[in-house]
């Protein structure tokens, strides 16, 4: 190849009411072609009703190496879950 063709991440909404889900990636020179290529590559069997393409370089990811520290603040807050609380017998609609 004469020049590097940008990489795009592809997200497909399978059906109305569902969220877009990452399905894979592809190369394309611009967003419009990325969208067309994504249609041809990832929805050949009606797998989607909507597609997003995002330049791969535009995605900032947390690193798995930081996983513990990064997500630590949520680990000791069990009281954020309803199951943490004791409900006295006989209480309805709670």
């Amino acid at each position, binding site marked *: 190849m004469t020049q590097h*063709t940008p990489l795009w991440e592809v997200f497909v909404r*399978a059906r109305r009411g569902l969220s877009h889900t990452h399905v894979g990636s592809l190369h394309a020179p611009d967003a419009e*072609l990325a969208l067309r290529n994504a249609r*041809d590559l990832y929805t050949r069997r009606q*797998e989607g009703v909507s597609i997003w393409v995002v330049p791969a370089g535009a995605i900032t990811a947390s*690193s*798995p190496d*930081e996983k513990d520290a990064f*997500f630590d603040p949520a680990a000791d807050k069990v009281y954020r879950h309803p199951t943490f609380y004791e409900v006295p017998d006989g209480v309805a609609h709670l």
Partner: protein
Amino acid sequence: MYGNDFSAPDGATDEAPGGLLGEVEAAEAELRAAAARGRRGGPAPDEDLAAYFAEVVDAEQKIEPRDWMPDAYRRTLIRQIAQHAHSEIIGMQPEGNWISRAPSLKRKAILLAKVQDEAGHGLYLYAAAETLGISRDELVQLLLDGRQKYSSIFNYPTLSWADVGAIGWLVDGAAIVNQVPLCRCSYGPYARAMIRVCKEESFHQRQGYEILHTLAHGTPAQQAMAQDAVDRWWYPSLAMFGPPDGDSTHSAQSMAWKIKRFSNDDLRQRFVDMCVQQAEILGLRIPDADLRWNDERQAYDYTQPDYDELMQVISGNGPCNRERMAHRRAAHADGTWVREAAAAYAAKRAGQKETVAA
């Protein structure tokens, strides 16, 4: 997630998934179950990374692109996924050869869709390989330079229309037997790509079987054509599973890493056992005089393919190696102007946007 939500178009429900397609679904369910089980976060700051990696793999969890992994694991995966991608791309040629000569419009439309699928499979796999830190350009160049291989099967010629049927039934059938366990590979992006590939591959095998079934129940000339195709494709299909276990160089380590789940010989046996009954229904003969049921082993005894021939084909001396590579290089070169024009157009459009913004 790849491969979820294949909404069958209006009411077209398949029969209860059993056999290989059922296994693909089982692998997909397993992948989701493993994800649901979760695991503790990344390795502790002072933890041995190799031990951590082994623990994740042993727990049937997936390794993801940004996880630490041994260099050899990365190299093995890049080689295997790239080789797999190249096979899909080169694999378009033998069948593409028959698109313009398909016997009916229906068969032509089906064959076009199938060849387009092969291109798609190549692209899913290239994308999976790229998550390991190698670029598409490098992968394409490795194929064009002959520094990475593709499956030996595509170096055999397609001499008649029945060959399209035999490829679907035997070659895609063997590929599915090989690939279904890869849906459970320890590397996440590869496993997910394989689930998608395997689901699509099942249509390929069935369309091939249907072609052969039609021919085998046609005129004597059509029957002879179908039999001739099976005669020529049987042993090369058996050879697709690679050298016998004793001579397989990469197997043991790949099994330990859970990239590979079954040995070459186990998969080959499974394929033979599947094909015997399918051949009976076709009314075609598998070209092996020593093929018989072994009650003790509960499996068929069969004649091994010619592994010297396999080695010859792998090292470039098959009937069509040069033709396939020449065609791929020419196609890549012929596409240069398209890639350049698309890039120039993208640059021009980006320039216009900047001007408007300013």
